[in-house]
């Protein structure tokens, strides 16, 4: 058993080591590589659960890992609090089914799928854990570099075209990130997030605009990642062009952007930030609401399930961003906890939809004919990109199983009872209405309530239309490998479990949101933890 002190660094080390080991074997040892990958993802899931249990039980729920045992605000620290623990769990819950699904056939379509997948997870986990801005940049780059390779996995004209745009946009975002980080260092002399939070409150009037400018540059980088309108046009193209398991695991990447917005927004511009308190909240609210509208229209306008799901990612991101904006403006913890719950549920459902798109699309006729027309309109070549060959045992009753999984995911994303999406939406709507009732002339909350309900309706209409065309109006049984449906069902099962565990999950997330709006515990812990000396073991 790893000592509990070192467990915090495990989510970064496990994918790093397993990815590096996989590189030693060539492409002929696919089965072995897949085994290593699955073992690594399983181990990450176990560690994430252990970390979340630790964050749940311990009193203040913030634990620190001093890299190289340097004193806290000067060295680089990894910080585990409730929010990062829950994000780690979400990441590992997504990774395992996606990798399992890739094992059916996708990992054969190109080189180095396994290592890139692990390095992506390493970047994602590192971004969730780090307590240092520049270190965050490095983990972002690790994640992005791996994602470039994964997006191009399987190649083809559509993927290379989408990849070109995706890489160019993310390189620009990286520049914005660097400019913001450098400016923050120039003004405050620190890059440790908690140290920074204590310094923002006491800035001189001349320095304050500079830190605001730095925050704007940084949030430019994060909001491109989180796909806030008008920085989101790359996303539906890139995600629908990616191979299904890649798109599924990419759905955690927009959440990395959202996570950093929550983390830095709440730390730097929370209630303790003096004159900077609530900076940028209006932009998040307006941008988030615009993203919901854009995603909603996009869902209604697209005809292909993976493009629809790409637009659903936008709806989910927009919802989250506007919740964060409202929470930042009014310090309303209940809405934030509802938002986090919705994020957890919708991300899993969106990943499952990405995985479902391809097996359902294998049916002949029906939607396929329609799709050919769409592909022509978008100027894409209908390329045959699926590798043929042995895909393992194929199960009967494929349409029924696919239909059940599809329906569950749609109900979660649209927020219909009885599944987790409904619980999440309710937990956002109830506090929003409460706050709105006390502020008679402020329309942000009412607009949010209206758009949230409308976006659910739009999702329902678009998805039901697609579902009827491809599942009911088409009696063919598509060939469905056991591995593929098992991984989709694992995601659906997690969603059902999340619905049943809604009460403890909400209690945990309530305390998470509470800790985020009252960030003194986080800052205090990071600023006061002393190096352990030689006796770490």
């Amino acid at each position, binding site marked *: 058993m790893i000592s509990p002190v070192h467990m915090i660094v495990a989510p970064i080390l496990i994918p790093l080591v397993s990815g590096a080991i996989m590189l030693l074997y060539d492409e002929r040892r696919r089965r072995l590589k897949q085994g290593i990958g699955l073992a690594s993802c399983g181990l990450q899931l176990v560690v994430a659960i252990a970390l979340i249990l630790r964050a749940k039980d311990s009193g203040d729920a913030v634990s620190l890992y001093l890299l190289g045992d340097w004193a806290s605000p000067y060295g680089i620290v990894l910080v585990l609090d409730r929010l990062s623990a829950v994000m780690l769990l979400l990441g590992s819950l997504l990774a395992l089914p996606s990798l399992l699904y890739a094992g059916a056939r996708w990992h054969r379509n190109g080189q180095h799928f396994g290592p890139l997948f692990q390095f992506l997870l390493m970047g994602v986990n590192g971004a969730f854990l780090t307590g240092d801005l520049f270190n965050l940049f490095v983990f972002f780059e690790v994640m992005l570099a791996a994602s470039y390779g994964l997006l191009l996995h399987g190649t*083809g004209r559509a993927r*290379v*075209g989408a*990849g*070109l745009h995706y*890489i160019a946009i993310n*390189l620009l975002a990286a520049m914005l990130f660097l400019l913001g980080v*450098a*400016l923050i260092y*120039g003004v405050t002399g620190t890059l440790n997030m908690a140290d920074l939070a204590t310094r923002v409150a006491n800035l001189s009037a001349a320095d304050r605009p500079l830190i605001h400018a730095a925050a704007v540059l940084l949030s430019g980088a994060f909001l491109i990642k989180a796909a806030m309108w008008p920085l989101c046009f790359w996303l539906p193209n890139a995600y629908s062009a990616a191979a299904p398991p890649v798109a599924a695991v990419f759905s955690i990447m927009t959440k990395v952007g959202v996570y950093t917005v929550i983390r830095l927004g709440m730390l730097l511009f929370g209630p303790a930030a003096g004159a900077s308190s609530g900076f940028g909240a209006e932009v998040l609210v307006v941008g988030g609401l615009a993203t919901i509208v854009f995603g909603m229209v996009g869902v209604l306008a697209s005809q292909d399930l993976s493009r629809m799901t790409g637009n659903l990612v936008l709806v989910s991101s927009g919802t989250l961003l506007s919740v964060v904006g409202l929470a930042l403006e009014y310090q309303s913890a209940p809405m934030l906890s509802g938002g986090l719950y919705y994020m957890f549920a919708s991300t899993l459902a969106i990943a499952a939809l990405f995985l479902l798109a391809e097996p359902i699309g294998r049916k002949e006729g029906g939607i396929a004919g329609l799709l050919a027309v769409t592909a022509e309109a978008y100027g894409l070549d209908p390329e045959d990109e699926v590798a043929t060959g042995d895909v393992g045992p194929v199960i009967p009753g494929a349409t029924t199983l696919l239909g059940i999984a599809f329906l569950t995911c749609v109900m979660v994303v649209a927020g219909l009872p009885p599944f987790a999406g409904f619980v999440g939406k309710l937990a956002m709507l109830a506090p929003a209405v409460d706050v709105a009732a006390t502020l008679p002339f402020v329309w942000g909350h009412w607009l949010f309530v209206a758009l949230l309900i409308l976006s659910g309706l739009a999702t329902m209409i678009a998805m039901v239309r697609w579902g009827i065309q491809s599942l009911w109006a088409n009696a063919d049984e598509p060939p469905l490998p056991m591995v593929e449906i098992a991984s989709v069902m694992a995601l659906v099962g997690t969603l059902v479990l999340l619905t049943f565990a809604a009460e403890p999950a909400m209690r945990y997330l309530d305390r998470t949101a509470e800790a985020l709006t009252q960030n003194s515990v986080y800052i205090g812990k990071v600023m006061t933890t002393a190096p352990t000396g030689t006796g770490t073991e």
Partner: protein
Amino acid sequence: MELVLSVSIGVLVASGVWLTLRPRTFQVIIGLCLLSYGVNLFIFAMGRLVEGAAPIMPKGGFVDPDVYADPVPQALVLTAIVISFATTALFLVVIMASRGLTGTDHVDGSERNP
């Protein structure tokens, strides 16, 4: 020195932005390179400009930090250079692949007026 540095950052970033918005992939990659040079100089400048001062302090005893340059931005800029170099190289590969697959160097993979 301040004037020279700020003018060169400005020129690099301005030409980088202009080139990045051009329709040819080669122009985009050169634009991204220029942008990253500008950004790297900017990071370097955030450690304040000092002449003839080493960023490494001698070991032991108290030393006056005023006579040394700030080492942190220099370390940051080194990391940034490595990362932007690597990602630009990767981007170049994708550009070559796109050129091979589509037969054009337009960023959208097809000419606007074929």
